[in-house]
């Protein structure tokens, strides 16, 4: 019995920590309808600023806290300037992607400057503890709680009773109307970002002190949990964010209690999905509010797709097939083969995100399912890859569509968050389902590619095989796009309300799109498994998902050629410039930022 009390206290303590992040996220969302994916990076930067103050500069704690808040507030203003303001006219997905790019840049910069090692952060607080049941509350726990509650209270008063607070709420309700009324909307956004990021940075320092450890990689996980708490509490709802965080902490704690530590994150994302499906507007909402406006539809800038003459395409494809004869280096051939595999993922994503408008942030999970399916079938049952790879495609299509189906009723940001959550869940399930997937050990000894008895071990034969599969699936996708399905999908993307009014069942066609995409990605994953001969749950993770999105945006959302071009550009080129390896993530982040800002239609901008 006392154990459950312990779990509850522990859950509340952890929830307390999430609350500091979630409140900042809620504030930013409330005023600008933006999920700030760079929030975790700000949190991390705050930790480092505080660390610098405490250790290198030897400043006392209150000064360090102040410096952290101010430093991160300034960073917040910069993020607003880069990530939000120039993208005001664009569709809502653009700032989301911009903040993802910013987070990549910040994380990598921190790693380059400070090195990847975790550092201890001294905590110059009195070391007393309070024992409640079996759980111990330390001085830092109470400080964090005080700051969390205090910040929420101050924000509440600020938003309710001050002029700037009213301006913030007005801007949140209706930016244009507020501007008409004389509100300096840009200043309001800056103020909000400053406050929210200041709070985020402060929480980074506090958490760093709490666990006596900060490192450049701590931001991403923080962002994920913050987003879950944000959604559970209701997007934009500041007190809700605190409630959501506490609930998240509790659910995680009970999940660990029931199933074990490695299930913590799984429970967090299952909570996310449960809310998305049953209560997308959060804990404190009524359910019958009409859903928000669609996220895409206007992301594609109103410029025409670049038309490439068929002759050119045929020539390029012929060149691609001929390439192995031109270069003796099997390294180049291998690199391009990897590019073709990612091309299959990009094909899949450009269909789903571009043509149908479902911006999926978890697409790499489809590669993972395909890889595992093909690997397990060939390792456990001894079936030949010529059979297991297509099967893997079908299995991925089925599982992927099934998992994502409940999220079809969602629009806008919610779709992206849902796909992010589903992607994480798939990875965690693969990790934890030992008996099927061998858990963290992964699958070794996956047989190489064989085609009807003829083994493809040479780099060249693998290259041609993969390229052939890619070309085939690309042609099929083009055919689909030109058929009635293509216009139906695009209608759903443009305006699903109007589409429904004319008999289009969005769920059916979204499912078809995910199934077709799942097939391509699953086949890609299957080929990869036989190529790599070893896979585990981290082989295709969330970073690959974001990378896939960058590829697809680079190539032009919806464009088949663009998808392949984007894949080659972002997978194969960095390989050839390996000296830039340290900076790879940085470069991806910058590319994403530049694309979103200056050329959202990418290279071939299709519709």
């Amino acid at each position, binding site marked *: 019995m006392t154990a459950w009390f312990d779990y509850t206290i522990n859950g509340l303590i952890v929830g307390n920590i999430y609350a500091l992040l979630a409140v900042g996220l809620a504030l930013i969302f409330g005023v600008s309808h933006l999920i700030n994916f760079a929030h975790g990076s700000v949190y991390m930067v705050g930790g480092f600023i505080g660390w610098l103050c405490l250790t290198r500069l030897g400043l006392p704690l209150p000064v360090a806290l102040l410096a952290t808040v101010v430093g991160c507030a300034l960073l917040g203003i910069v993020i607003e300037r880069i990530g939000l303001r120039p993208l005001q006219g664009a569709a809502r997905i653009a700032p989301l992607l911009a903040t993802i790019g910013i987070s990549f840049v910040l994380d990598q910069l921190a790693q380059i400057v400070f090195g990847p090692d975790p550092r201890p952060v001294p905590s110059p607080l009195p070391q007393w503890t309070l024992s409640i049941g079996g759980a111990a509350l330390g001085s830092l726990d109470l400080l964090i709680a005080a700051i969390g509650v205090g910040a929420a209270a101050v924000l509440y008063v600020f938003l309710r009773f001050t002029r700037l607070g009213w301006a913030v709420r007005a801007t949140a309700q209706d930016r244009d109307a507020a501007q008409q009324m004389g509100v300096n909307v840009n200043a309001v956004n800056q103020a909000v970002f400053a406050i929210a990021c200041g709070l985020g940075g402060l929480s980074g320092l506090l958490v760093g002190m709490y666990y006596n450890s900060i490192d450049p990689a701590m931001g991403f996980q923080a962002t994920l949990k913050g987003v879950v708490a944000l959604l559970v509490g209701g997007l934009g709802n500041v007190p809700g964010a605190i409630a959501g965080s506490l609930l998240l902490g509790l659910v995680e704690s009970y999940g660990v209690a029931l199933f074990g530590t490695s299930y913590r994150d799984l429970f967090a994302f299952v909570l996310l999905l449960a809310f998305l499906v049953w209560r997308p507007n959060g804990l404190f909402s*009524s359910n019958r509010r*009409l859903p928000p406006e669609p996220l895409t*539809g*206007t992301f*594609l800038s*109103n410029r*025409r797709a670049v038309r490439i003459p068929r002759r050119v395409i045929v020539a390029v494809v012929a060149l691609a097939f001929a390439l192995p004869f031109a270069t003796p280096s099997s390294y180049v051939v291998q690199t391009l083969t990897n590019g073709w595999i990612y091309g299959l993922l990009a094909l899949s994503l450009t269909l789903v995100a571009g043509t149908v408008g479902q911006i999926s942030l978890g697409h790499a999970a489809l590669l993972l399912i395909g890889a595992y399916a093909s690997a397990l079938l060939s390792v456990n049952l001894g079936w030949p890859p010529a059979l297991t790879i297509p099967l893997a495609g079908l299995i991925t299509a089925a599982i992927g569509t099934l998992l994502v189906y409940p999220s079809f009723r969602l629009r806008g940001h919610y779709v992206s968050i849902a796909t992010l959550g589903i992607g994480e869940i798939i990875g965690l399930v693969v990790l934890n389902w030992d008996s099927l997937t061998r858990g963290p050990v992964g699958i070794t000894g996956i047989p190489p590619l064989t085609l009807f008895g003829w083994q493809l071990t040479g780099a060249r034969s693998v290259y041609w095989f993969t390229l052939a599969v890619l070309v085939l699936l690309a042609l*099929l996708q083009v*055919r*689909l796009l030109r*058929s*009635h*399905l293509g*216009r*139906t999908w*695009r*209608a759903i993307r*443009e*305006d699903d*309300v*109007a*589409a*429904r*009014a*004319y*008999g*289009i*069942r969005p769920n*059916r066609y979204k*499912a*078809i799109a995910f*199934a*077709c995409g799942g097939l391509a990605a699953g086949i890609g994953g299957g080929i990869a498994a036989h190529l790599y001969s070893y896979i585990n749950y981290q082989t295709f993770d969330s970073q690959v998902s974001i990378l896939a999105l960058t590829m697809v945006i680079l190539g032009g959302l919806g464009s088949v050629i663009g998808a392949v071009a984007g894949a080659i550009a972002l997978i194969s080129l960095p390989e050839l410039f390996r000296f830039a390896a340290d900076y790879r993530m940085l470069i991806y982040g910058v590319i994403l930022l530049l694309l979103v800002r200056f050329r959202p239609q990418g290279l071939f901008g299709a*519709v």
Partner: protein
Amino acid sequence: MSSTSTNTADILFDVRRVTRRFGGLVAVDEVNVSVARGECVSVIGPNGAGKSTLFNLLTGIDTPDAGEVRFGGEDVTGMAPELLAARGIARTFQHGRVFGNLSVLDNVLIGAHARLATTRRGWPVVGAFAEVVRALVGSAAMRREDAELREEVTALLARFGTRLTPRIDEPAHSLSYANRRRVEIARALALRPRILLLDEPTAGMNESETAEMLELILGLKREGLTILLIEHKLDLVMRLSDRVLVLDDGRKIAQGLPDEVRNDPAVIEAYLGHRQVGAQAGRSETAAA
């Protein structure tokens, strides 16, 4: 002018006591509507009267809290929009919702979605699979249907003279506002509707555009199409309607022939002191419900 028919088989839309509440506000309060085949019924009322909400309730975008909607004798209360489309209900939207990045042709082709054999539903999963196969491979029958559809659409667009036909491959967002509204109507007609619901078809149009639209709708009426119309421009309402329904504050305050309604004191009062309803052209309004 058609007399009100008591023959139920001729009544297409039979709406009884539909109600919709948003928290404390009653947007639509026990409204009855009936539209007979071939009739043109207009719904008018001041801003915020609940007209668009009523439309949403009739087209499945929203679900009534109480009441019943019958279409062609069938109970369709709370049915999803796509099912209503399959039953022949076509609508246009208050602010004009064309598919911006699709061509004019594609926009209108979409209108026919509900009635094509190519897109028929079939069994739960197998049917979807079959549709994909059809899209990839197709059959002679499918190609024939497609060709016929394109001919039909071309003919449809020709109704609008030279307004749309030269722009058939342009993306809809590049069209003028008036042309976009025309595309919307063409799309609705492609559905071969049994009833056409028009939500402020001339909103934001100038006099000559409005006159063109009037001619178009009169032409549709002459062909026997049943129309339910929300409109603010009261001279239009007078010329088009067989019957007029007046809503105020969610309640029906008057119903009947256009002239009867025009002189109804309750209606006049609802429009706040206009001595002669219809003497002024309808003002353009800001965003309503």
